[in-house]
């Protein structure tokens, strides 16, 4: 009786809807970016403008800010959808939910992670980073922010609609974020000290691939549990 869309078309439709929504709520979408910028620019204000110190703490500041900005944006990931009932509809489409959830995660990264990557060189310069450090900052953000979105999606799905979702979410996903933070700042510091950062980068890469494979699937399962 029905002529439903194929898997790919369905995926694209969800992605398109998410991006359109992001565009409509563009101020909301900008929040993590602005937050990122604010955190990083408040630092020289609070710490004092000594370039020596700034340069030392720069990788840490940038990555902590990126972590927090992502954490902030996660509350929004499924919450509106829960309240207006579109999340139920997502689980009721005749396509594997994990594929559609993946589209949502991709859109989340495109609207929160990617802007951070793109703005980071500017901020790195304002913190007086060397050009090597700057390049590795961008590179680690490019590899690392998708992990933040992927893991974050699991956390957001598990804590969906719970009172105090905020803290719980932080408590659940920060332990899983810590390796990203350590490897990334490690890579930047190693590279700017003239060592090879290959080891750090390949670990981040491995983590990215593992989360890419498992996160959409786990997230969709967690959503099902949370909506029960």
């Amino acid at each position, binding site marked *: 009786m029905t002529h439903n869309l194929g898997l790919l078309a369905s995926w694209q439709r969800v992605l398109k809807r998410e991006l359109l929504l992001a565009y409509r709520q563009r101020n909301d979408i900008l929040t993590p970016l602005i937050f990122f910028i604010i955190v990083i620019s408040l630092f020289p204000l609070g710490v004092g403008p000594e370039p020596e110190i700034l340069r030392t703490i720069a990788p840490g500041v940038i990555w902590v800010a990126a972590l927090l900005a992502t954490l902030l944006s996660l509350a929004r990931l499924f919450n509106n959808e829960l309240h207006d009932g579109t999340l139920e509809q997502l689980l009721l489409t005749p396509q594997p939910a994990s594929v559609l959830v993946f589209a949502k995660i991709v859109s989340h990264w495109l609207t929160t992670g990617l802007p951070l990557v793109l703005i980071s060189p500017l901020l790195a310069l304002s913190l007086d980073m060397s050009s090597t450090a700057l390049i590795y900052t961008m590179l680690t953000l490019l590899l690392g922010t998708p992990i933040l979105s992927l893991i974050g999606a699991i956390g957001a799905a*598990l804590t969906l609609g719970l009172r105090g979702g905020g803290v719980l979410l932080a*408590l659940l996903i920060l332990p899983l974020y810590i390796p990203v933070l*350590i490897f990334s700042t490690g890579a930047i510091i190693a590279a700017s000290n003239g060592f090879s950062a290959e080891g750090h980068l390949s670990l981040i890469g491995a983590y990215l691939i593992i989360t890419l494979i498992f996160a959409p699937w786990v997230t969709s399962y967690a959503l099902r549990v949370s909506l029960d």
Partner: protein
Amino acid sequence: MIFQKYAAPKYFYPLAGKCLPWFGTLAILTICAGLYLGLFVAPPDYQQGETVRIMFIHVPAAWMSMFIYAMMAGAAAIGLVWKIKLTDTFITASAAIGASFTLLALLTGSLWGKPMWGAWWVWDARLTSELILLFLYLGFMSLHSAIDDPRRASRAGAILLLIGVINLPVIHYSVEWWNTLHQPTSVARIDGPRIHSSILTPLLIMAVAFKLFYVSVVLIRMRSSILDNEADSRWLQEQGA
């Protein structure tokens, strides 16, 4: 199936009641024996001297922290697939114990680290991953308690537990994969333990003692949570009468 029969609270409750005294007594005996051997009989180490005695708490506690997590994750998988309610009772009873052992391992470790390494704490892979294990325990406990619906709580908790399993091999192999400040494996080595038998024996006894202690406490906690959950079921009232 016999397994499924005893997974029903109605059968499990009395069975656990019968086993408990045995495990409890054995646990107390082995702990006493292990502590006596470890603190008074075992010789000091050729390099660390008397400080080595922290090992008899640190190492078994660290092993337990991983062992309990593995048990919980296994139970979570069984619970998700076969929908057995008792697994959740077991998991929630274990969580706090596992978290305590993890904390104990971290505390004794850093207590040991200060004199030996010259630092309470460093961010090497072994220490960091063990800290993450503690956070996983805490995250699981708060997630479980934040959800009021029991079925959702157990399923969501199970997902989190299974995600965290990946941390276990990282903890164990971290000392071999990366250069850490923490020492490499001494006991479970292909070429045999690198600990002299006079030190190894109390260590292994303490490891067994901690396991017995864990089983006893889990049984106690499971029985009391069954009492809470099934307060108004018929079999329990019959048993009370």
